Every structure is written in structure tokens, then in C-alpha cells.
């Protein structure tokens, strides 16, 4: 009887402890799984927000940079034509001033993007060179200059051309880098 009683007690004890262990194991497993699931969802949500924000930034740059490139190209060509014609043309000059103001607006509006891509100083310098050039032409046309010697448009244009090539290289490089990032 004693042996049977002992055996029953051992089996009961083992059964109870096994049951408790199983319960605890299930509880902790579920709890850990739940915590991981919550953390995973949180991480997924953060990732989605970050991807959306980065996508927005890239989209904005992909819209802005081609406009800046176009304005640099057009203003460079206008400056070249103004130097080539010898006699400044009022219509072309007014067009150059309008486009340089447009460029200035874009440079300031997208400064944060240009800064982030380390392009701001270079593009801003190009914009200033164009404005310096157009002011020189305006002085010649309105007769406010002390003389032709004071304004060397060819020299100013040589600086514009040099700066233009640098700006184009940087902007195109940055643009292609970002578009390939989007495609990848």
C-alpha cells in the first residue's frame, strides 16, 4: 500500500509540476511573442514613415534639380549670346534677369535639399555670377558704367562657363545617384 501510495504521490507531484511548468512555459512564450510582435509592428510603422519621408525628399529633389539645371543652362546660353553679339540686346537682357530671379527663387526654396547634397554653395555662386554679369550688362546698357574698361563681360562669362560646368557635373551626379536609388 505504501509503495502504491508513494508512487501515486510521485506521479501526482510530477503531473502537477509538469502541468505548472507547461503553463508557465506557454505563458512566457506567449508573452515574449507578444512583446516581439508589438516591437516588430512598431519598427514596421517607423520604417514605413521613414521610407515615405525619404521618398518625399527624393521626389522633391527629382522635381527641383531638373528645373535648376534648365535655368543654369538657359542663363549660361543667354550670357554667352550677350557676349557674342557685342551690342547688348534689351529683350535678351530682360529675359536673363527674369530667369536669374527664377533661379534665385529655386536656390532659396530648395536650399535644404541643396545643402544636404553639398550643392548649395556651388549653385549659389553660379547664381551670383549670373547676377553679377547681368548687372554689368545693365550698367553698360543704361550708361551708368564709368566705361567699358570697368566691365569685362568676356571675363565674367569665362567665370560663368567654368562655374556652370562644375554645377552641371554636381547636379547631374546627385540626380542620377538619387534616381538609381529609387529604381534600386
Amino acid at each position, binding site marked *: 500500500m505504501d509503495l502504491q501510495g508513494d508512487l501515486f504521490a510521485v506521479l501526482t507531484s510530477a503531473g502537477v509540476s509538469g502541468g505548472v511548468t507547461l503553463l508557465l512555459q506557454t505563458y512566457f512564450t506567449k508573452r515574449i511573442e507578444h512583446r516581439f510582435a508589438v516591437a516588430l509592428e512598431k519598427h514596421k510603422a517607423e520604417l514605413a514613415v521613414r521610407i515615405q519621408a525619404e521618398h518625399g525628399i527624393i521626389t522633391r529633389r527629382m522635381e527641383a534639380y531638373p528645373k535648376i539645371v534648365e535655368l543654369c543652362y538657359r542663363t549660361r546660353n543667354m550670357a554667352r549670346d550677350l557676349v557674342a553679339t557685342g551690342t547688348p540686346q534689351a529683350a535678351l537682357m530682360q529675359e536673363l534677369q527674369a530667369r536669374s530671379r527664377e533661379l534665385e527663387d529655386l536656390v532659396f526654396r530648395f536650399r535644404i535639399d541643396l545643402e544636404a547634397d553639398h550643392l548649395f554653395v556651388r549653385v549659389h555662386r553660379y547664381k551670383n555670377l549670373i547676377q553679377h554679369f547681368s548687372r554689368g550688362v545693365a*550698367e553698360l546698357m543704361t550708361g*551708368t558704367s564709368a566705361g567699358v574698361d570697368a566691365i569685362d563681360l568676356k571675363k565674367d562669362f569665362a567665370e560663368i562657363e567654368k562655374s556652370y560646368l562644375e554645377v552641371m557635373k554636381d547636379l547631374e551626379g546627385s540626380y542620377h545617384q538619387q534616381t538609381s536609388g529609387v529604381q534600386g
Partner: protein
Amino acid sequence: MMKVLVVYSWDDDISQRRYARMKGIASRSGYDFDQCFAVPSPRTPPTPNGVTNMISAAVDQFQPDVLLIHTGAAYHQVPDAFSEAARRIHHKYPGLRLGFEHRPHLDLGNLSVFETSEEMTRIEQTFFGLEL
């Protein structure tokens, strides 16, 4: 001859070329021109203290009659720093006449420290406004 000090954004190779040209334009219009800068470099964000100190140093040295603020890259970065600096400069040098480069949607125009006379408009146009 009226002394005009213009505050540009920062010193670079273009500012030196512009200086030579502006000196000539100013001289022919009857002004004595000098320039100073709001920040030491494009990498330095403008602060009220920084801009005020840079301008004060130039004002003490050149002692201008008129101070003009160019509303370019540095201004666009932190407009409030320039508004505050303009207030402080006006307070520190009450006799100094203040003007600025006008552009659409500028907050500076709302500050009472800037002179709005016809003469000031002419001075501002001389330094900022030569267009066809």
C-alpha cells in the same frame, strides 16, 4: 558724401568683384560705399548675436550714414536673426538710417526700424535695383 554700408551674406570671390563694381556705381551716384558680411561663411548659420556683432564692428569702423541689408542667402536661412539684429542695431545706433533689399513676401518690411522715405527708396534702388 553720404556713407552707405551694405550688409551682404558672406565673403567670397564674388563679393570682392561686386565690391569693385559697387564702389564705382556708388561713387557716380554720390555715395561712399563699403560692405560687410552677416556671417563669416556659408556654413555659419546666422544668429541675432552673430549678425549684430558683425554689423556693429563694420559700423564702428566705417561710421556710415545709411545701413542697407541685402536679403540674400544668409537672410533666407534665418530671417528672424536679421529682424532681431536690425532692432538691436537701431537701438545701438539711433542716428543710423536703415534700409533693405526689397523682395516679395519679406517680413523685414513690417519692422518700423526701416526708413521708408523716397530718398531711402532711391538709395536702395541704387545698390540693389539696377534692372531694365
